[in-house]
């Protein structure tokens, strides 16, 4: 099962590569599978290249996104630019995935920081939490009460 998953991963990785380099017209076409890198990742990575290259995007029916990079300076190394773009894609993909997994922790830390700055806020939230807990308990008791009605004799 693990080996099968590795093969699938390898196929997906192989699917993401340089589509072609047009030296005559001075551009490189990259092919990226949208299942591997999201559009947000592509826009974020592309943003860091805006001072070096001109960027245009296209997509096919299979879900592949094509990235056209044309260097602003003449005689630039097209392949190097393409490979650097893939590195940046990986960088942003990692950033987005870690920020997603750490979002709850960051939220908690921020909440604590805010509460320590304003203790009255902490009491308000605590009161609200207790109220909610009481309401929930009362609701459950009502439901249980309905279920445990004495049977008619």
């Amino acid at each position, binding site marked *: 099962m693990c080996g099968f998953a590795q093969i699938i991963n390898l196929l997906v990785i192989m699917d993401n590569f340089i589509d072609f380099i047009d030296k005559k017209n001075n551009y490189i076409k990259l092919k990226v599978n949208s299942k591997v890198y999201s559009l947000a990742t592509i826009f974020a990575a592309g*943003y860091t290249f805006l001072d070096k290259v001109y960027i245009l995007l296209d997509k096919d029916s299979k879900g592949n996104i094509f990235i056209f990079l*044309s260097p602003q300076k003449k005689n630039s190394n097209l392949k190097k630019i393409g490979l650097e773009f893939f590195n940046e894609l990986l960088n942003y993909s990692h950033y987005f995935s870690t920020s997603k997994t750490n979002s709850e922790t960051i939220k908690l830390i921020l909440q604590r920081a805010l509460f320590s700055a304003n203790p009255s806020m902490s009491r308000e939230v605590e009161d609200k939490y207790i109220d909610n807990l009481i309401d929930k308990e009362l609701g459950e008791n009502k439901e249980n009460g309905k279920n445990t009605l004495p049977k008619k004799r």
Partner: protein
Amino acid sequence: MAKIPFLKKDKNGNIIIFLRKNLYSYSIIRGIVKSVEGVHLKSSLKEYFRIKLETKDSKKGLEFCNYLFSEHR
């Protein structure tokens, strides 16, 4: 200057850019087209937005593409 597909010239030499509808946002493009003179949008095509720039300079077309890209971030 790069001859990227989707970047064409009409019979008068004006720059025409084709942008995929499922990659570029209509609201962002419309906002730019409204605020910049000499830019025209045709959105009736099935898969692409057709943007016409009243310029013959290909470099300006490419710079417009980069500006659009940065607005999508």
